[in-house]
């Protein structure tokens, strides 16, 4: 288990991470989200020991790690940094063999891992000939060397198209049971596969929890879009008036009502009485992107 205990990071006068409390449980998949400059990469760099907290501390299994603890921790760590340019002059196989030696992993693991990430056929091609998706898979392959217990993936789906993202997620299924920390600014995509979400903004945790808990914490209103019959508007306005938290706007002949989550059921119940005066109704829960924008 890893815990940030009031950990901070400053660069001169710039506070990249404000005092931060965060616990990452064993086998948990945690998604770290935020806009560019929100502190995601700083958090991940601290997590793998590339950057030390300016204040507070990072605890691994309950104690602050010393140099030898870091060495031990990194034996069971797989790290996939953002925008890494692997060795252009080496083949995929030679690249992995180099990293396998650094991790003192049996070189016999190299080809099976390349097969696992779908690069066996390209193993003997130079990585300079690889596509973006292939490079990402090779990058993941080096992170998977030695069957790590802990994976830290910084923007792993950055630049991948929809197929690439789907393939990448398929690959990740094989590491279920491991602790995985992702960072991304593509929240809706990653939120499907993580257990908890941590939203960072200006170096602070703005929201932390499961997807449902996040909706509760942020409490964005639900939108009810109504296609009314001619006379519905007045009665609808009356129904909205009963609720303190609701607001009504008219858009292209539709009525859009924003209702607080706590009033949602009551409003829908009131609306039922007007059902004969409506052609159609659509209920829109806020998206995770809206949650991210709201918190950011």
């Amino acid at each position, binding site marked *: 288990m890893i815990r940030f205990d009031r950990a901070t990071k400053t660069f001169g006068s710039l506070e990249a991470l404000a005092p931060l409390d965060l616990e990452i449980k064993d086998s948990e998949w945690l998604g770290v989200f935020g806009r560019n400059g929100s502190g995601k990469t700083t958090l991940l760099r601290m997590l793998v020991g590339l950057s030390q907290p300016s204040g507070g501390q990072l605890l691994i299994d309950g104690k602050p790690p010393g140099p030898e603890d870091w060495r031990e921790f990194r034996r069971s760590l797989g790290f996939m940094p*953002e925008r890494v340019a692997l060795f252009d002059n080496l083949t995929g196989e030679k690249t992995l063999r180099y990293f396998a030696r*650094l991790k003192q992993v049996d070189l016999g693991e190299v080809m099976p891992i390349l097969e696992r990430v779908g690069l066996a056929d390209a193993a003997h091609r130079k990585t300079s000939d690889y596509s973006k998706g292939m490079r990402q898979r090779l990058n993941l392959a080096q992170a998977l060397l030695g069957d790590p217990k802990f994976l830290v993936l910084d923007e792993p789906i950055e630049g991948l198209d929809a197929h690439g993202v789907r393939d990448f997620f398929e690959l990740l299924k094989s590491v279920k049971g491991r602790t995985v920390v992702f960072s991304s600014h593509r929240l809706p995509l990653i939120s499907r596969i993580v257990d908890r979400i941590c939203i960072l903004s200006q170096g602070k945790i703005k929201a932390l929890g499961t997807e449902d808990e996040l909706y509760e914490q942020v409490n964005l209103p639900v939108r009810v879009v109504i296609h009314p019959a001619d006379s519905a508007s007045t009665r609808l306005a009356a129904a909205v008036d009963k609720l303190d938290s609701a607001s009504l706007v008219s858009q292209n002949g539709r009525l859009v009502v924003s209702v607080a989550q706590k009033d949602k059921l009551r409003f829908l119940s009131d609306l039922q009485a007007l059902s004969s005066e409506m052609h159609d109704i659509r209920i829109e829960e806020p998206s995770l992107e809206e949650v991210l924008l709201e918190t950011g």
Partner: protein
Amino acid sequence: MKRVDAVWSIARKELSDRLRNQWIWTVSLLVLAATLAIAFLGAAPVGVVGAHGGGAILASIMNLAVYLVPLLALVMGAGAIIDEKRRGLLDLILAYPISSSEYFLGTFLGYALALAIALVASFVPTGVVLSMTTGINVFQYSLLLVLILGLGTSFLALSFLISILSRDPARGIASSVLVWIFAVLVFDLGLVGLLVGFGGQIPAPAFGAMMLLNPTDVFRLIAFTWVGSASSPLGLATVSPPFPAVVLVSAMTAWAIVPLWLSHRLFQKRLALDRLI
């Protein structure tokens, strides 16, 4: 993982990368061509054309080494470490079970081995030709080769310091060329200027000590002392007092170790502050 294995893994990768670099082999070939030309023409100043006159030839090869070896070493190491950082590889490698000191040492070792191979390839064939044609003292030539390797290592250590100070490969190359011009050309002109300015009245120990401030002059002094038969064309080295061998060797060693130690310290400090580039 054993520390030595980690260092060697990094060194092997760097060595292989450097040896793939065509620029190094091009320069090595040029140096080889120049040394072979000297082997046949080097005694021309003393009126002998052809592979004769071993002492003068050795002196010419020494002078060639003073110009080209520092340049090769400085340009080779100009982007060391910083380039890896810019490509994101440094972060990746340091997230493996390897310390930053092991990484630093492994990188320097890889560069130093590549430089040594390039220098051996440049100077040994000429030595073989000379030993067969002029009966040159093989021991003296071997000693010269060791000195050339020491000179190269000193400037490679300087190039690591320049690279980490400059934070950018392009700026690193520009700074390296300036350091080369200063060490090879400007420094000695400055000393000559001082000598003339003081009417030749600078005490010999003080003048000698000033020469120790430049690794190319340390190289010349050692060559002057140890490869003595070729002393005549060695410029300022001939007006310096003879130093005990231990002082000269210590100075040459210091020129390799001090810049390397400083660059390691700076690397560690900037790494800790996340300000390597």
